[in-house]
């Protein structure tokens, strides 16, 4: 069993990384009082954008391309919800359909039947000298891709920014009470735009990470519900940065569990493991009663 522990934890962190990007992006969006269930569409757009950009200019370009694709999708969302005052849920649903449909269409159109499996650049894990030799933690935490290491920096910075800067305070205020924020002279709409676009960029990075650092290729619908899981992760993390990151690890573990259990030879149908993360979300949402400590403005229309 011990021999399986380290690969399991390693897989957990690896799987959690893209989830964390999407969840942190959704966290910021929701902290501004807007729920974006179109994150699924943003992620898949990031997958495809990352694929195309990487093919053109290498892996680094791929991440940029993924983020950009995410931002573009988020712009559509923000335009409809903030400018046209459309319902955020319906717009988000449309965004998901748009993302899935558009990427599927373009993928077939550009890559045809052979697909893109060959020739997709990817990045390999990098061992941090010294730290990676620590027993157990070393291979698990410090032999990961650059995107994971980026998260180690991003999470504390985001936590600090949210709680200890005026900008973070303003974001939180906008998410709690639009009226109070307006009265304090804050530009609610601009802040929400920013939060949504940030969510888009992070969702796009999630997609790019999936393609370039985790799976190594693109398949239609590869986002597999991660956009919705990101929303659950934010709830589980109680709308805090560190909590969200930890919750992402929990979900990474759930995904990785299917490999662990298969390798351990348990004779359970593998579909159970497919369903497990989603069931976990439901159980946790019920246990946490999803609502306490949610930014108050989430229950109101965004504009």
């Amino acid at each position, binding site marked *: 069993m011990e021999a399986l522990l380290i690969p399991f934890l390693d897989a957990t962190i690896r799987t959690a990384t893209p989830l964390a990007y999407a969840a942190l992006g959704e966290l910021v969006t929701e902290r501004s009082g807007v729920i974006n269930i179109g994150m699924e569409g943003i992620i898949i757009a990031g997958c495809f954008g990352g694929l195309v950009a990487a093919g053109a200019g290498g892996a680094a370009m791929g991440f940029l391309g993924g983020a950009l694709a995410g931002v573009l999708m988020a712009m559509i969302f923000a335009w409809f919800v903030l400018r046209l005052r459309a319902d955020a849920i319906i717009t988000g649903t449309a965004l998901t359909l748009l993302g899935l*449909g558009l990427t599927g*269409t373009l993928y077939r159109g550009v890559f045809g039947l052979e697909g893109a499996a060959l020739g997709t650049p990817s990045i390999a894990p990098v061992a941090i000298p010294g730290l990676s030799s620590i027993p157990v933690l070393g291979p698990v935490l410090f032999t990961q891709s650059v995107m994971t290491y980026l998260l180690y920096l991003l999470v504390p910075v985001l936590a600090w920014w949210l709680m200890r800067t005026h900008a973070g305070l303003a974001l939180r205020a906008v998410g709690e009470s639009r009226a109070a924020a307006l009265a304090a002279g804050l530009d609610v709409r601009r802040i929400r735009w920013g939060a949504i676009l940030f969510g888009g960029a992070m969702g796009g990075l999630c997609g790019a990470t999936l393609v370039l650092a985790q799976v190594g290729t693109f398949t239609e619908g590869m986002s597999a519900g991660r956009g919705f899981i990101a929303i659950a992760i934010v709830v589980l993390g109680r709308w805090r940065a560190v909590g969200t990151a930890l919750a992402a690890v929990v979900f990474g573990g759930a995904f990785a569990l299917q490999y662990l259990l298969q390798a351990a030879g348990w004779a359970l149908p593998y*579909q159970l493991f*497919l369903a497990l993360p989603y069931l976990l979300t439901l159980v946790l949402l019920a*246990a946490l*009663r999803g609502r306490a400590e949610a930014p108050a403005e989430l229950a109101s229309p965004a504009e």
Partner: protein
Amino acid sequence: MTEALLALWDGAFGSSYAIWSATLVRSAPLLLLGLGVALAFRAGVLNIGAEGQFLLGAISATALAQGVGGDLPGVVMIPLMAVVGAAAGAGWAGIAAWLRHRFGVLEVISTIMLNFVALATISWMVRGPLQEPTRIYPQSAEIAHAAQWPFLIPGQRLHLGFVLGLLACVIAWVVLTRTATGFRIRAVGASPSAATSAGGIDVTRTVTRVFLVSGACAGLAGAAEVGGVTWALYEGISPGYGYTAIAVALLARLHPGWIIGSAIFFGALEAGASAMQRDAGIPSVVVQVIVAVIILGVLAGSQRRARPTGGRR
């Protein structure tokens, strides 16, 4: 481009086969699914789980057919399949309804999660308990003849499910506009606070009932698809019908009568899309883009009228 559009039109309306066996057959599930979504939205319930409820209806109808299909006559079998399918869909929706009522879980999230669980379930079913005897293909055996739903027009593939869908829409329209129950649903959707305070309406009970009915419609659609079209269960049995249903409902402005036209429109799109892929080489997944664009178009034009209001308290 014109070639593609012509292929699209041709595939949808170009021949009597196209109309009766392609367009309307594809509209059949959308009638019930769209109705279910519209009713839910009308009551303020964001049921995004039509897809999963549809699959559960298909699974249970298949299981029933495989179990007793050979033993019972069609006249018993078919209504039984319909009832079982509707019950399964209602039950699946009921999980989300219970989570919402008991734990305050947003149904937007829970219904989507359940969609994925349903996908995992059907994947298991067609590789396990319901798999065909040779155990080679991930699909069920063909259901017994008695369980196959009758065709309405000789030589065409239009089946009973289409009529059920039409009936359901008409009944729903009458209920919404003429009955006390329908009035309560509309009131709760428009303003749960006024419904409670001024009307003494039990919002939770009304909402839960609509949620279950919404699931039942989706489940019935699943049973009809198995009984009337595929005669077997397999993984891809729903090409995203549950999500298209949202577009159907929105385009119809949540009005049960207009669902009929909206469902036929989308059915035509799907039928045309297959033809378009076959004849002009454009991938049919493009329809998803069209659906998304239509939803966005309705949103842009409607100034928040299409919003499923209230319902969260």
